[in-house]
């Protein structure tokens, strides 16, 4: 009697659960386990002095955040992150638009050009870092060897060891790697621009530059929103290249926020402090992304 009652209660309860919820449950469980839980535990760890190794975790209040606020090293990393992000977002988008327009207009071997420019994207950041480290090496690198061969040995530069050039070298090598990715997004955008608009402009006497300036560029706004946001997020998170090419050096010159989080958390055994910086970085990315999306959305044109 009781069993029947229980069964009907169970079936009534399950009947009320939508199949959608049932299908979502495994994903929610995994997401909670691997994303939500670590996020909340990180928030807690950022208020501790945990070294990342021992079992003892001590709560130290806002000490980590006070240190972040006062630390010259963190300020330098923040400055580098901002320079890298701004330079990469601008340069990657300019290079990607230029490549997309060129590749779109090329009459022969179009697929070859697309593949060639996209190829660096497929290389991992670590491999790319090693390749460029060899190219830029002071004593054995191709660039300095070429300078020597053409009699300009005095122009040789320690590209990754000189603080004036280390960050620039990282920016240019990352540009080389990433521009192809955004080129594909812009190429897709170019395919969506109706031919009749450019034809009409052409009949009206508009030159190539005017057509690009007045038609193509405004209609690429959607692609630009996507590219800019993606490029900004990946630039704020830049890590592999720094780790391999400079290890944040010379000195602390090329440290970025993500790299300092790793260095402090793992290398310097201050996981609590590193986590606090990760929280700051998270907030920073969130704020910048929201602002960027709002600004860029205004530019978009609905066809």
């Amino acid at each position, binding site marked *: 009697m009781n069993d029947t009652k229980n069964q009907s209660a169970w079936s009534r309860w399950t009947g009320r659960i939508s199949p959608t919820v049932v299908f979502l449950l495994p994903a929610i469980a995994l997401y909670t386990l691997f994303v939500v839980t670590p996020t909340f535990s990180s928030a807690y760890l950022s208020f501790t*002095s945990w070294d990342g190794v021992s079992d003892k975790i001590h709560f130290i209040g806002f000490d980590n955040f006070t240190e972040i606020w006062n630390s010259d090293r963190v300020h330098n990393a923040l400055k580098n992150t901002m320079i890298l992000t701004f330079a990469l977002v601008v340069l990657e988008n300019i290079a990607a638009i230029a490549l997309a327009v060129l590749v779109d207009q090329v009459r022969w071997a179009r697929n070859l050009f697309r593949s060639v420019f996209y190829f660096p994207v497929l290389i991992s950041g670590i491999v790319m870092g090693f390749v460029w480290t060899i190219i*830029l090496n*002071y004593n054995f690198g191709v660039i300095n060897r070429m300078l020597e061969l053409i009699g300009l040995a005095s122009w040789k530069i*320690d590209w*990754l060891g000189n603080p004036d050039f280390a960050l620039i070298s990282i920016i240019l090598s990352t540009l080389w790697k990433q521009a192809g990715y955004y080129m594909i997004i812009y190429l897709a955008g170019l395919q969506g621009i109706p031919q009749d608009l450019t034809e009409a402009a052409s009949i009206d006497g508009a030159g190539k530059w005017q057509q690009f300036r007045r038609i193509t560029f405004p209609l690429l706004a959607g692609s630009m929103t996507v590219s800019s946001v993606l490029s900004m997020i990946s630039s704020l998170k830049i890590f592999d290249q720094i780790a391999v090419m400079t*290890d*944040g050096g010379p000195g602390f010159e090329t440290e970025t926020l993500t790299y300092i989080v790793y260095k402090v958390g793992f*290398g310097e055994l201050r996981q609590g402090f590193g986590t606090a910086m990760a929280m700051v970085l998270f907030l920073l990315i969130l704020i910048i992304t929201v602002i960027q999306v709002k600004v860029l959305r205004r530019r978009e044109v609905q066809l």
Partner: protein
Amino acid sequence: MSKKRILQAAAPAVALTLILSACGGNNNNGSASPSAGSSSPASSSPAASPSASAPAKEVTFTIGYATGDPATKQAISQTIEAFKQAHPNIKIKDYSETTSASYLDWLKTKDAVGEFPDLVEMRDTKVFADSGKIVELPSELVGLFSNVPEVDGKKYNAPLTLNAPQGIIYSKKAYEKAGVTELPKTYDEFLAIQEKLKTSGITPIVVGGKDIFHMGFWLNKFLIDEVYASDPDWNSKRTAKQVSFTDANVVQAMTDYKELFTNYVDKGWLSTADNQTASILVSGKAAQLFSGPWMFTQIQQADPSFEFGYYALPDREGNVSIVGLPSPAGWSLSADASKDPDKVAAITEFIKFFFAKEQYSKYLQTVNGIPSTAENITYESTEQMKDVLAIMADPNVKKSLMINNWWGDNQIPPQFRNWYYKLMQDLVVKNGDVAEYMKKADEEYDTEVKANAQQ
């Protein structure tokens, strides 16, 4: 048409077969046969006599060690191979990898991903002992060594070698060309030689500054001369805030370092890795290298005809102080591995094998090391190595340690070393004011002492 189709279908199949057979081949060659009784090349190995205490069943343990120095890496991997051949039932999984990170960073990352090696070359013994990651050395192994330094009264390490001194490794040809006929007796004479070398058109010194540990050779040379030679307890006094990095002796040490690096070091030092220094030396791009005897093999391999000498670098008064005291570093057993008696037996067997006379002498010859064993080990040494051994045996030469190798009360916060070396890179590249930079060092040291006290 059908032929083409057959070919198209057959090609991937053939490729797959080749790949699979290659994998099979590797398995056969790479891993030890599970059957201890099967015939193996073990009998041909000179040190191949599995002891009776070796576990008979199949055991696997993992190993991790620093790979920054190619000679040491080569010597350890050769010993591992010899051990695997001699003990077919023991498998060793080598976690070591070449990275651009410092060894502490690498080990900490391995720990974070749950791959802390069962047998690990330990350099920051106190950090990992305090966190319970490593255990004391099995008592039967302690007796193998002449001296095992203690951390908080416990012995954790099987020292790979005794600490060897860094000195100037110089090109005889470059010295001759620059008119240098006599080795320097004081630091000022050494500087005069640098000027002569520079005038002769060669870069005086190559430095592998991309590797943080190589930076340490030079920085500690000056710190030992000015600080540790006269005050071995300076670190504990610094922790107690009785002395400061801004004191005249430390400022003098770092001023000497800055002047040397600004005037006489290869311009590309910050992007030169330690393992590139031998090539730069033998190719005649630089005349000298400041490093230890482990570089001799690399230099000889890079150019067997290259003529070079070695000497310890004196201070301004002509005193010679070198790195040479024992410090708590070497093979350590992980706490996880210590819970498995079979692993402990296998690792104990490996350590005995590693330090057995015949095997250890080969290791020492490759790395030009100074034996740490109680048993007297001899090996055929080169002319340069004889100079190193003579310096080590000289009672007038003071023995000291690098800033991070002191232990007990003199242990510095483990994270300080890398930070300080980087700060010193910054000092040179930004042409900074030494006293100002030393203030930063004081602040960071105190912050780290405070952070560690909160653990």
